[in-house]
């Protein structure tokens, strides 16, 4: 895992998000990868990562229940692997 609860990261600037009923489509213009963000909460957290010093703060700011944090960290980690998210 690259990403932990303390990581500082952000949406890659080459990524565009398109809102959809299930969450969003994320498209990376650099590697032309299309990724599905499968929950509206994931979308709002992902969008705000750049404004917070850590994943934890982004989760708190988006009022994500603590029980769901590990799932979010692993989702963000897999987004990092597809270069949708990058470490700052």
């Amino acid at each position, binding site marked *: 895992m690259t990403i932990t609860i303390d990581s500082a990261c952000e949406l890659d600037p080459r990524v565009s998000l398109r809102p959809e009923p299930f969450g969003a489509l994320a498209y990376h213009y650099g590697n*032309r990868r299309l990724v599905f963000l499968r929950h509206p909460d994931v979308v709002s957290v992902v969008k705000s990562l750049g404004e917070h010093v850590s994943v934890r703060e982004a989760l708190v700011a988006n009022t994500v229940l603590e029980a769901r944090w590990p799932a979010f960290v692993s989702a963000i980690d897999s987004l990092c692997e597809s270069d949708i998210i990058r470490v700052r």
Partner: protein
Amino acid sequence: MSVSPLVEELKRGLDAPICLTWELTYACNLSCIHCLSSSGQRDPDELTTAQAKAVLDELRDLQVFYINIGGGEPMIRRDFFEILEHSGKNGIGVKFSTNGAFIDAEKARRLAAMDYLDIQISLDGADALTNDAVRGEGSYAIARRAMDNLAAANFGPFKISVVMTRHNVSQLDEFKKLADSYGAQLRITRLRPAGRGADSWNDLHPTNEQQREIYNWLMSHGDNVLTGDSFFHLNALGPALPGLNMCGAGRVVCLIDPVGDVYACPFVIHDEFKAGSALDDGGFTKVWRESALFQELREPESAGACASCDSYDACQGGCMAAKFFTGLPLDGPDPECVKGHGEESLLSVPILLTPRPSPDHSKPSIMTLRQPAVRV
């Protein structure tokens, strides 16, 4: 195997297509016997440059991230580069399909200098004999020259796009070798009985044994091979191939034809699957979101005659276009059903009652050669 919740969501349709295919022109220098769009002659009502740009602006506003451009031969359009540039400028990535005839050294350099651009060169045989029998005399040499020019211009990893036929399934390893030799990516797709393909399908479509060969080959080489998710009907053979495993027609993909008509997918250019026109009031957006046809395609489909088959979840009943143009009911087995149910059903389709592709832009010399499909 169960259907994932994401696939269930996607079947209900998105606010805009994930990607769409846009055939820029019906004009073509070749007359391939399996052409999906029955191309040859330019349609006099082809979209003007201004109309084409307006469509692109609409796609930008819809956040369509990339489009597949085809034809006909799209590079025949005089404004081809202008359209590519307008697309790139608006953040719409383009992958265009070409037979390569117009990619000389200079054009290859020009293409290599552009952003957000993928090229796929069509090739349907690993040697001239096999390829030219389908795509026409000299077309193998044309495609190879285009590949050489792209490689010399350092375009990067272009794609070699192969439609799988009875005559080239045995060449899969050779296609892969060819792609590797160029640092290119191999893409293989399923032959559809659409366009002129309705006439050649009986002679060209892979045998049941070959379908298994395609499946096995993809299972062992599939990681770096693109398929456009077109082989999901083969998933009844075992573990699922990579991809969404669903028919995306009118749900996540569609086709815009050279005159602006919007069809459910690239394989159903037929009045029955025409949803409207991008030139209508409300434009493409309204057609995508509100057309009766697309609304209907987003309704839960019935498994029909396939309901009792334990492979239905895996194969989803196969391809709508393949069923339609072979005269099979849409809620029944695919003509290439790996369990053989399609072949049984085909026996009960009356000869000459299969739907004829429409419209037809074949060159006159080809038209006179065309015979109604006769199934034996």
